[in-house]
């Protein structure tokens, strides 16, 4: 028992005889007692709350705080007498030694990490890789708690009965998503046009921001103004699977590229609201000539496709019957057609089915048919890609119905009215079933993009419903159920449990399922029970590298644990075969072998999961949608920009790893990794949807993760920015300092963007309250410098404020609702008094401490990878890792390697 290492009497709780007291007591008595003892408890801290038991975690934390604050020079405060330098050094030295010793004892006795389960992200990914298909189950599990900002920290990952039950449900759902007991669907190809969307056509003459053209539809506004029920011929994704989508599109009235968002499911699609919405792409439409984009996407049965130019503003045309869309000269995107091919399967049944039901005989069920949700498309003539290429006998079989409207007429108003009257009658007939569901097609001899004011040719479809779930057309008919059960459960257990194969243990799971089978339960239910048991066993749910196998002395992970920690760190999943091989052979612990795996794993695309998950937590990128920018103030924000922001950070960190760029580039770099959309926001040049490395001019305010739009967005609240919130964030996340929470009863400082009070004036006042100054002199400098950026990451010299008369604006008018307000003053001084003029100079000052920035990165990486925040006893080890990478200029890749081969990682 190593308690009561030192106590400090008579100041502190209890008497004691340790030598340490003799040395610490006079210092505390002389320096601290005035404000922190005998009933005085400034800052809510009293010395008697310190007990001598540093092995007690609460007590340890208090002592650590004493150490930190004295060490950082915050205590004793500036206005008190400063202790002599050598006394301070002695005190700190003694205290630190005690804390480091206690910390070491704790790690030795308890291990570094508290036993922990997989978090949601790991659970879903590990299960997906195990089953062999991307699963959608994370949202069924309760959100994970975080500690030190990471959802990988063992102490925060508790198990509750709610959690346990969610696992059972999630595993059941995962099995449902993975087995395919219907016949292989034939891939089919449809070419779809918005011209064939009833709702577009019914309303386009009023206000909708779309213009039918001979070859397609020109869209003039973003999602909010698009027609949610305009779902491409009412095409419904017939089967879950991978589809190849080709979209033919060109710019209208614009030479500036525009993003065209393609989405499946979600808002607006009433029919598929229950399905998860997926933003598939933001296609970069760059030219006035038609161009085809082809990409593949995983879609769900029942998804509808939706498409809109989301960079364009909300716009509505006046409801005056003048059909102003036809003469509108603003920017738009014409979508000629969309072709969708699929479902595409590499094999049938898919790999996940083989994993769970491989080798089990099935037989066909008579009379069960899965209805095609797109019967209306079977009879429909195709819209040609280019009208000039249309077939001779277009439309096939000729037009059954006479034209409703005349040729394109200059007097659109007349035609429109005439059209709509006559059309209404036909529509009614069609809906009543008294008329064939296809009416005449337009005149295709006109050049692409020609407006179609008198168009009246779209097919009408009656209300389309989301399809019923797939029914099984085959059923399981195992020849020897027991044998299949035995084989499948063993096989899954072997791969699911991330350790040496436990054949004997698997037998018990087989027996469980067997017992059900014997009781007359169906083969499938028995098998599911077996699978659920395997996957709720701690051998699946718990991280093996967090479970200690013996309890004496400092513990090194064994090879299996190391394999798991590494695979979870870089891939968010269980170890793959090569890792398992080397673990089984006991070779993984060798540094050379380990390095070989690290290099291999970082080359693999799966390491993108690390980049995404680590940044998602470290930089709060997972919270990018937590606040929605006020579009009256920041109309620049749109979904294309939002995606570009996150992608920039991920590409930047990826580049730092791949090119082994210095860690200091977290704060300052002479390049950025941006795409066209972000280049516009930053005032730089870049093209395309994908980011590329762009050199910065010397005087740029950009460069480094610190000034990425994503970081600037997650640190703002959508309407305004606060130097305190941003400053605290930078301090915690990038500079590794933890300012204390504000004392109770202090009003929050919020910018008054309307009034004449600058945020600086408010801060000055705030800082003078009580003992706020000691923290604020550190929090405020980065926060003040970052005032040069608004909540969507745009550089600003003045604050924007809403115009007084904005509420009188016509909704359809697009003129700005804001005006320029007070100027931003980003100049300030560092805690040491060093002055800076703006963010550029601040970044230079911060970037000087290369080792310090590397230190924070190592600390964050260890917390994320190991699942426990480093403590004071680990500081030397972290410094050693940092130094190891110094030769490479603190390159991020070198840091990663040094982290993985360090003792901290392997304990």
């Amino acid at each position, binding site marked *: 028992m190593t308690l009561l290492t030192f106590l400090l009497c008579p100041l502190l709780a209890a008497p004691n005889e340790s030598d340490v007291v003799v040395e610490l007591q006079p210092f505390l008595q002389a320096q601290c007692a005035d404000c922190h003892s005998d009933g005085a408890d400034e800052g809510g801290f009293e010395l008697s709350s310190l007990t001598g038991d540093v092995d007690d975690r609460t007590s340890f934390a208090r002592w650590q705080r004493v150490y930190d604050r004295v060490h950082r020079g915050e205590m004793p405060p500036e206005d008190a007498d400063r202790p002599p330098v050598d006394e301070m050094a002695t005190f700190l030295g003694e205290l630190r030694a005690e804390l480091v010793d206690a910390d070491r004892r704790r790690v030795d006795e308890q291990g570094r990490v508290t036993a922990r389960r997989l978090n949601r992200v790991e659970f879903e990914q590990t299960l997906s890789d195990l089953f062999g298909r991307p699963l959608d189950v994370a949202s069924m599990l309760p959100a994970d708690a975080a500690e030190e900002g990471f959802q990988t920290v063992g102490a925060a990952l508790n*198990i509750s009965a709610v959690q346990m039950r969610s696992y059972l449900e999630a595993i059941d759902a995962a099995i449902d998503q993975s087995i395919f007991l219907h016949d292989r669907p034939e891939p089919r190809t449809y070419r779809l046009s918005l011209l064939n969307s009833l709702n577009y056509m019914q309303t386009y003459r009023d206000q909708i921001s779309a213009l039918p053209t001979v070859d397609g539809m020109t869209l003039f506004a973003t999602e909010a103004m698009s027609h949610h029920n305009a779902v491409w011929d009412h095409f419904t994704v017939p089967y879950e699977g991978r589809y190849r989508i080709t979209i033919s599109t060109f710019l209208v009235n614009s030479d500036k590229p525009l993003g065209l968002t393609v989405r499946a499911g979600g808002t607006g699609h009433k029919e598929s609201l229950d399905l998860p919405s997926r933003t598939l792409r933001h296609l970069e439409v760059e030219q006035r000539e038609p161009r085809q984009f082809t990409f593949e996407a995983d879609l769900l049965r029942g998804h509808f496709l939706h498409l809109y130019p989301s960079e364009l503003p909300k716009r509505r045309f006046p409801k005056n019957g003048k059909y102003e869309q036809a003469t509108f000269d603003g920017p738009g995107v014409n979508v000629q057609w969309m072709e969708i091919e699929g479902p595409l399967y590499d094999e049938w049944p898919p790999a996940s089915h083989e994993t769970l039901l491989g080798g089990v005989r099935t037989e066909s069920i008579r009379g069960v048919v899965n209805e095609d949700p797109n019967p209306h498309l079977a009879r429909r003539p195709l819209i040609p890609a280019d009208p000039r290429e249309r077939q001779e006998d277009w439309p096939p079989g000729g037009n059954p119905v006479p034209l409703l409207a005349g040729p394109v007429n200059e007097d659109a108003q007349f035609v429109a009215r005439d059209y709509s009257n006559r059309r209404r009658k036909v529509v009614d007939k069609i809906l009543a079933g008294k008329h064939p569901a296809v009416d005449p097609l337009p005149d295709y001899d006109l050049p692409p993009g020609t407006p179609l004011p008198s168009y009246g040719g779209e097919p009408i479809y009656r209300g389309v419903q989301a399809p019923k779930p797939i029914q099984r057309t085959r059923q399981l008919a195992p020849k020897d159920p027991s044998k299949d059960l035995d084989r499948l459960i063993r096989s899954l257990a072997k791969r699911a449990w991330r350790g040496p194969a436990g054949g004997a*243990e698997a037998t018990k799971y087989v027996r469980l399922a067997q017992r*059900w089978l014997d009781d007359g339960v169906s083969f499938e239910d028995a098998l599911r029970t077996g699978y659920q048991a395997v996957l709720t066993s701690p051998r699946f749910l718990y991280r093996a590298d967090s479970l200690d196998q013996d309890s004496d002395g400092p513990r090194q992970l064994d090879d299996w644990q190391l394999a798991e920690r590494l695979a979870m760190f870089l891939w968010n999943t269980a170890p793959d075969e090569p890792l398992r091989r080397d673990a089984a052979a006991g070779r993984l612990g060798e540094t050379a072998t380990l390095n070989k795996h690290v290099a291999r794993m970082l080359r693999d695309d799966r390491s993108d999961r690390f980049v995404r998950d680590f940044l998602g937590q470290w930089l709060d990128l997972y919270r990018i949608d937590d606040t929605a920018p006020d579009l009256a103030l920041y109309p620049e924000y749109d979904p294309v920009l939002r995606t570009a922001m996150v992608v920039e950070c991920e590409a930047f960190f990826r580049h730092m790893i791949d090119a082994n760029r210095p860690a200091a580039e977290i704060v300052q770099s002479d390049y950025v990794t941006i795409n066209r959309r972000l280049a516009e926001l930053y005032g730089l040049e870049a093209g395309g949807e994908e980011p590329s490395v762009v050199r910065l001019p010397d005087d740029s305010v950009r460069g480094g993760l610190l000034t990425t739009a994503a970081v600037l967005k997650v640190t703002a609240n959508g309407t*305004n920015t606060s130097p305190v919130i941003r400053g605290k964030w930078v301090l915690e996340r990038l500079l590794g300092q933890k300012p204390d*929470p504000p004392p109770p009863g202090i009003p*929050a400082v919020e910018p008054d963007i309307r009034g004449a009070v600058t945020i600086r004036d408010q801060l000055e006042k705030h800082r003078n309250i009580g003992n706020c100054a000691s923290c604020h002199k550190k929090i405020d400098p980065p926060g003040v410098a970052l005032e040069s950026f608004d909540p969507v990451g745009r550089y600003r010299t003045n604050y924007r404020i*809403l115009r007084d008369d904005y509420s009188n604006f016509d909704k359809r008018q697009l003129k700005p609702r804001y005006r320029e307000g007070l100027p931003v003053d980003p100049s300030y001084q560092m805690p040491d008094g060093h002055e800076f003029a703006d963010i550029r100079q601040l970044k230079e000052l911060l970037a000087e401490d290369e080792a310090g920035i590397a230190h924070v990165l190592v600390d964050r990486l260890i917390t994320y990878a190991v699942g426990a925040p480093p403590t004071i006893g680990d500081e030397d080890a972290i410094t050693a890792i940092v130094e190891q990478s110094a030769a490479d200029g603190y390159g991020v890749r070198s840091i990663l390697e040094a982290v993985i081969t360090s003792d901290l990682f392997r304990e």
Partner: protein
Amino acid sequence: MTSTSIIRHGSINRRTALRGLGAAISLPVLDAMTPALAEEAAPLRRMIFINLHLGFMADNFVPTDAGTGYKPSKYLERLESFRDDFTVVTGTSHPGVNGAHTADVSFLTAAPDAASASFRNTVSVDQIAAEQIGQDTRFAYLPLGLANSSMSYTRSGANIPAINKARVLYERLFVNGSKVEKQRVRRQLDDGRSIMDFVGDSARSLERRLGSRDRQKLDEYFTNIRETETRLQKSQRWLEVPKPKPATKGKPKDVADRADFIAQIDLMYDMIHLAAESDSTRVITFNQPNLNDVLPHDGVSQGYHSLSHHNGDPEKIRQLELVEMEQMDNVARLLGKFRDTAGAAGSLLDESMIMVGSIFGNANKHDTSNMPIVLAGGGFRHGRHLAFDQTNNTPTANLYVSMLQQAGVEHEQFASSTGTLTGLEPA
């Protein structure tokens, strides 16, 4: 070698807590399912907690005078016909709770400093109540909301996912599955139980190889496996009991306009009423999260959250007022439904404590002091404004302790409470 003190203390607390939980759950189930037996001792009480994330503008909410003769504020005028059925509570807050919009996770837990990196949530008051007064009903508690997370947090501080679709909730409350479906659910529950049973056993073998610290951590796993089993067992028994008939006919239709959060909240309030009226549960939480939808009502053109940061802009304030009035009217409709429904003795409102509030006293400044609170029903002496000090707030947890005690839950202390809420007394 013994384990260090911190571990020992920690696990004793946890284990004691869980033992209490286990005891509550393993009441003889047959008894537990016949509520009549329990009613002899104490009147039936229900607890309903409603979180309206952005709260209310204080100038329009807080009455200028205190006590029974208070003059209703602009917003409270909307509740005037219920004057004797509710108490307005001002000048309370959760000490140390801050962190802008993240702070609302502490609405029912009072856990401080939600935005700090080391934050971990604690158990919410409804869960404490559910452990005791939730045992006699089909659902120990119902965590409702408009998004994925509810206001309810387990003993380990994990968020309980919300039921956020009225249709789904309705089915769980009132729709008896077909025979086949029932069979399937029965099978699933059976499966679940035997899996928990089995996994618990087989994990024991793993436990023997572990060090003491991890054995304790795994203890949490075992305890929860046992509890999961117990809960599954309970669900299974209830499966055999036919579901009640709803007071109103027809399944609810989900609100088609996703921006119309007022209609969505109103629909959820309907469901809260149906759940209480059918005695499907005694504990309900409802979470209206931070929303930035533009309410599709005349005169409103900006997102709810954008409006809340009005910074004194008269136009934004005008629009926000419209939204907040609608919120109040929703509350009035909810109270009306409860008052118009007969309970075991008196009205359903007399049985049900309905607490409506927000973590923000001033969302414009993310100020978490002076939480706006309306407490209706539940057999308290109402009709007054309990005005606590606006600068030196009383812990809101005191109100929670008062509510727990009113529900017959023996609790002297909860989170940051310093006692019960002065001036709030049973009728």
